[in-house]
Structure formats: C-alpha cells, structure tokens
C-alpha cells in the first residue's frame, strides 16, 4: 500500500509531458475515423454547398456578367452556411453516447481535447469546402486568377468558422433541438470572417493586393485559436453539468 502511494506520483510525472499530445492526437484520430465511417454524412456539406450555388443562377440570372459580380459573396456565404450546417453534429454523438463526459473526466485539459475535435471537423469539412470552391467558382464565371485566393481565404476563414462555431455547438449540445438556435447564436459572430474573406476574393478579382485581407483572416484565426478553446471547454462543462 505504502509502495503504491510512493510510486504513483512518479508515474504521473513520467507520463504527463507526453500525455497532452498523446490525448490530442488520439482524439483527433478517433474523430477522423468516426467521421470516415459515415461517409455519406461527410459528403453532405459539400453537396449542400454545390446545391446552394446551383440555386443562385436559377434564382437571380444565368448571365455570366451578373454572376461574376456576385460570385465571391455567393461562394463565401454558401460555404459559411455549409460549415454551419455540419456544426450541429460536432459534439452531438459524443454527448448522446457519453464519451463527452469521459473527456470532461480525462486528466488532460478539456480545451485541448475540444481543439482536437474542432481540428478534425475542419479537416473534413472546411478543407474540402475550400478545395471545392474554385470548381464552383468556374461555374459562376469567377474571373480566372482569383481561384487560388478564393481557396486560400476559405482555408484560413473556415478554420476560424469551425472554432467560433464550436462555441455555439458546445453551448447548444444539451438542448434537444438546438439547430436553429445554433445559427442564431453563431451567424452574427461570423460576420467579420465573411467580410475579410469576401474582401480578399474581390480584391483578387479587381487585381488589387490581397495580402491585407488574408492577414486579417490570419489574425482572426490566431485570435480565435487563442480564445475559442477555453470558451468551448467552459461551454461543454455547462452543457453537461447544467
């Protein structure tokens, strides 16, 4: 008994330095694996993105000049909505089967585990959306030369969207039908990202410098990377403990 008491702190000290990173990668790997098991769901945001983009030429005008004018905004708004749509399920299954409670009990900080979940979500929604966006840009007659900027702005922006959105997802995970509420909470917070994302693409279309907009997107990402994990962790605790 006394031996056990003596050795426990030593073991804890030996495992703790690697513990956080191991827990982070394990959570990331687990989430990616789980998402790949439901491939249909994985494709849904992309299909939604393409569908919304299809609606606009039908609803507004198939005229290429008109479409080229509004393409940056359309692509960004549609991508934002697609990312929002996928957020509701971010913590939902873990909440339902109780693994979220295990994460709360884990010795590693909940903020880090939440960040791993957000990273998995971004890898499988934000990243594909950013890669598909130039393709849809072609159909909207987006002027060539702005495709790389579109992809890059979405790459940076969707990471911020995932981080900010995860706060809302964590706050509403305990509510039975939190989907509509989630969008009410999160959309106002998305506006800065939208402004600079669209700004970058429009600057690229006109031929102006895009560095300032991309730098602002990077700054928003850095700020949300710094603050959002703590808000996510606090929100998850509230949702589970009440």
């Amino acid at each position, binding site marked *: 008994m006394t031996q056990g008491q003596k050795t426990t702190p030593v073991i804890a000290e030996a495992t703790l330095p690697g513990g956080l990173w191991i827990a982070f990668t394990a959570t990331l790997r687990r989430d990616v694996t789980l998402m790949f098991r439901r491939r249909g769901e994985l494709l849904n945001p992309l299909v939604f993105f393409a569908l919304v983009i299809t609606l606009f030429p039908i609803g507004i005008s198939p005229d290429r000049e008109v479409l080229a004018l509004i393409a940056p905004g359309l692509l960004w708004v549609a991508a934002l909505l697609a990312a929002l749509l996928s957020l509701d399920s971010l913590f939902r299954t873990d909440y339902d089967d109780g693994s979220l409670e295990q994460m709360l009990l884990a010795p590693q900080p909940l903020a880090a585990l939440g960040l791993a979940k957000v990273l998995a979500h971004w890898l499988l929604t934000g990243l594909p959306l950013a890669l598909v966006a130039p393709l849809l840009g072609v159909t909207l007659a987006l002027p060539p030369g702005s495709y790389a900027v579109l992809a890059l702005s979405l790459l940076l922006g969707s990471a911020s969207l995932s981080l900010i959105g995860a*706060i809302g997802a964590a*706050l*509403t995970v*305990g*509510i039975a039908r*939190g989907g509509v*509420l989630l969008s*009410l*909470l999160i*959309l*106002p*917070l998305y*506006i*800065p990202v939208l*402004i*600079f994302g669209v*700004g970058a693409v*429009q600057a690229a279309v006109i031929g102006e410098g895009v560095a300032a907009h991309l730098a*602002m997107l990077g700054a*928003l990402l850095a*700020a949300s990377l710094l*603050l959002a994990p703590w*808000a996510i962790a*606090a*929100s998850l605790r*509230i*949702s589970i*403990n*009440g």
Partner: protein
Amino acid sequence: MWTFIHKWGSPKWFYAMSARVQPWCWAAALILIALGTVWGLAFAPADYQQGDSFRIIYVHVPAAFLAQSVFVSMAAASLVFMVWKIKVADMAATVMAPFGAVMTFVALFSGAVWGVPTWGTWWMWDARLTSMLILLFLFLGVIALRGAFTSRDGGSKAASVLAMVGVINIPIIKYSVDWWFTLHQSSTFSVTSRPAMPTEMWLPLLIMVLGFYCFFIALTLMRTRSEILRREINKRWVMDLAKEAR
C-alpha cells in the same frame, strides 16, 4: 471597501438597499427626460438643413448609446457571475438583456424613421446601421439561449458565456463592418460626417443621454428586485416580507 461590495452580492441586502437608491434614480430619470424632451422638441433651434426632423436625434442617440452600454454591462455582470458566482449579478444580466434588445430596436427604428426625410429611404446598409442590427441579433441570441435551457442555472451560465464571447466580438464586428463600408459604399451619405452641433442643440441631447442612463439604472434595479423575489421565493426573508405586506 470589499465588505461593502460583498454585501451587495447578497440578494437580501441588495433588495433592501436598492429600495433606498431606486426612488432617486427614478426621480433623476423622469426630471432629466422631461427636461430634455421639452427643451429638445420645443426650444432647441431647428436644423438649417433638416428642419424639425433632426429632433429625432433626442431619442435616437440616447437609445443607441444605451444599446451598446447595456451589452457591455450585461457582459460585465456575466463575468462577475461566472468568476465569483454572485447570483445577483446573473439576475441583473437576465433583466438587462430584453431592455438592451428594446433599446437597440428603438435606435434602429428611430434611425429608419429619421432616414426617410434625410436619405429618402427607410434603410441603408450603412456601417453603423449594420453593426447595430448585428447587435440586436446578439441580444436576441443571448435571450433565446437563456430561454432554451430547462434548468435555470445552465441557462444562466450559457447566456453568460455567450455575452462574454459577444462583447469580445463587438469591437471586431464594428471595425470590420466599418472597413466593409469603406470598401463597398464610399460614395454614399455617411452619418459620421454630421456637421458640428451648436450648444443649444447639444445640451438637451446630453440631458437626454443622462436621463436615459438613469432610466436604465432605475429600471434594472426595479426588475432585478422582482427577479430576486421570484428566485428567492422559498427563502425565509421573502416569506416574512410577504407576510408583512399582507
């Protein structure tokens, strides 16, 4: 000093002390608003460009001031609640949210009415209007989130987190919307370049702003008091109070 502040954290103390402060706040609010209204509507000179329609400013500007201040005070109360677990702070934050939403709506509505004679349109995607509209959505989000929780404690904490996230975002939203405005609509009319006001126009405005702030404090005290009674209904001192009243 600290014990004085700590005492206010007790619902019973708050209820007793706010009863003494409250009448003064109401009196100040009524006098200032009455004075500002009469002065602003009847005695302040008409604007040489906008005529009498400029008088909407005496409602519009105080409401817009309050809209932002209420969100900041709500977030501050939420922070106090989350850090020190002071329940009175959460009660104050609860009653501030609807008031702030109403003030934001009043600012937007009076702005829209003012827009008809000056801009010739009810709505313009101006930077200030847009960030005000977003502020309204933030208020509605906080109210809706609090209402969505079945347990009051969970709703309070969730709304507090959202209020704090929102207050960090308000300056970011404001500056990004300003940037967006300069990018998109640099040629249209800007509210910011209003000509400097003469003193006889400006003084009643200041009085109205002060009056609105007193009104905010008085109303928050009053509604926090009823919130205290509602939540502490099973406590001894509230029951005694009810017996006395009977």
